[in-house]
């Protein structure tokens, strides 16, 4: 798989405090990677390291296959756009002037796609209105517009929907999906709004205490979260044989437990297993949201 960004044993210390601790992350090309973690988990610190605002204490990260210690990284950075915490915009300038300055920062000779970018983010009618008079959602979209100058193929958005009203949240969500679909832009989005993130993300990285505790694709997550019956039996082999014979969809969880995804008649199932000397010891119906999944994961991690 081709990765836009990979980190290897990345670490960031502030005095003795490890904000990022042996972090390994993989962002596939074309993905919308949701970085999930509670406040203080290290999301923003990680983004600051990737953006070059701070230097890692140890470990490396590779962007487009180029290491952060390589001098070529300066060139690779031109292929990314980012919003770290708050959108970096000149509040006393218009949307157009904000973009023009970014064109000059990047040294782009032509500003021909300026209007198109403003249109893409829905700010083409702001005219001479200064950014300080924009709503939070408009400021966020302007931040994204600035990040889009230079046609990046990787956008990093740190908490992009923080403080937005429902309408603003929908606007940002639709914009992210549109840019991913139409321009093929890879996204790294940090958030603790799990519900919202689940509407866009194709991959997830769960961050806790500065470590990625799990990376998972949307499909895998849906598989893990979908409605199922978790059964604990004393004879797993017989149970599997029964499920196979009856074409019932299942997944082995461990040596004793099995997840059944199809609907089964509980009485018939129990009787059938009993005839095979297989006793059901536990029987639980489960359906997890991303939120529950995260809480269970973090809880599990905390108990380690």
């Amino acid at each position, binding site marked *: 798989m081709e990765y836009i960004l990979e980190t290897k044993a990345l670490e960031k210390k502030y005095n003795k405090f490890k904000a990022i601790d042996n972090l390994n992350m993989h962002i596939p090309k074309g993905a919308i990677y949701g970085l999930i973690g509670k406040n203080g988990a290290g999301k923003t610190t990680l983004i600051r390291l990737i953006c070059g605002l701070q230097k890692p204490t140890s470990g490396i990260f590779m962007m487009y296959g180029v290491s952060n210690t390589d001098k070529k990284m*300066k060139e690779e950075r031109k292929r990314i756009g980012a919003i770290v915490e708050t959108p970096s915009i000149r509040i006393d300038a218009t949307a157009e002037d904000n973009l023009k300055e970014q064109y000059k920062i990047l040294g782009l000779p032509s500003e021909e796609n300026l209007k198109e970018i403003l249109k893409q983010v829905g700010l083409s009618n702001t005219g001479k209105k200064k950014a300080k008079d924009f709503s939070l959602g408009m400021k966020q979209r302007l931040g994204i517009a600035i990040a889009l100058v230079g046609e990046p193929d990787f956008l990093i958005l740190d908490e992009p929907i923080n403080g937005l009203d429902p309408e603003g949240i929908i606007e940002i969500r639709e914009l992210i999906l549109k840019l991913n679909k139409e321009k093929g832009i890879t996204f790294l989005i940090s958030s603790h709004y799990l519900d919202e993130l689940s509407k866009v993300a194709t991959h997830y990285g769960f961050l806790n205490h500065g470590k990625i505790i799990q990376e998972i694709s949307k499909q895998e997550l849906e598989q893990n979260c979908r409605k199922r019956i978790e059964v604990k039996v004393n004879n797993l082999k017989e149970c599997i044989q029964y499920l196979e014979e009856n074409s019932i969809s299942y997944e082995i969880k461990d040596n004793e437990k099995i997840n059944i995804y199809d609907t089964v008649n509980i009485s018939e199932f129990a009787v059938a297993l009993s005839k095979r000397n297989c006793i059901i010891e536990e029987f639980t119906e489960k359906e997890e949201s991303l939120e529950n999944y995260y809480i269970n994961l973090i809880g599990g991690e905390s108990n380690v």
Partner: protein
Amino acid sequence: MYKLLNASFFRLKKNKIFYFIIVVSIVMALFVLYSRYTDELKDIQYGFPLTDLKTTDRLLIDNLVIIGFLMSLFTSLFVGTEYSDGVIRNKLIAGHSRISVYIANFIMSVVVGIIVEVIYLLIVASIGIPMFGGIQIPISDFLYVLLDSFMIIVFYAGIFTFISLICSNITTSTVICLLLTLAMMIMAILQTPGDEILNIFPTGQVIQISWLSYKEEANIQLLWVYSLGITFVINTIGIYLFNRKELK
């Protein structure tokens, strides 16, 4: 570097503080000329000798008294806005090195200081020379004074860029820059001629230039060397610290 300067000049064109300090400098030039003119009228009226009046070369250096304040205000606000608006992040994310960001801001501060000073000089010279006569001091001294004046601007730019980029809070850096200029001014005034401190502070250099060649202690041939050397040291330390700074 060119890209950063290009972006900064684009921003400068619409920067209100820039126009404000230009207006202050123009007002200062007109005020200096007007007070020289009224002094002359009074001296004629009361029959005092006109030789005691300020010559045009002295009028030309009067702006140096306020240039420090103007530059401290401009640099701290112009650079400070990079932090408060977060645009400094855009520059670094776009692949610019911290050294380039630092030097580009320093150059902007120097250029603005020089623009302000040149506007002042042009107004005073174009009106002052026809009205009150030409340069009275030896031309070599006058050229040194000009060189020293421009190097004082470079010196100020070095100090204020350092403060504004190391301290990321715009309000704090603006207050520090203004108070530091005031403190340097007071410190320089309190010194006696010949004190080394008059060489190593831009305000002390301004005082020495104001003596022109009337006092032997005026070190005008060497002041620019002090400015150049100290600015180099300040910039080196500033770049080192800025490189290590954890940006947010």
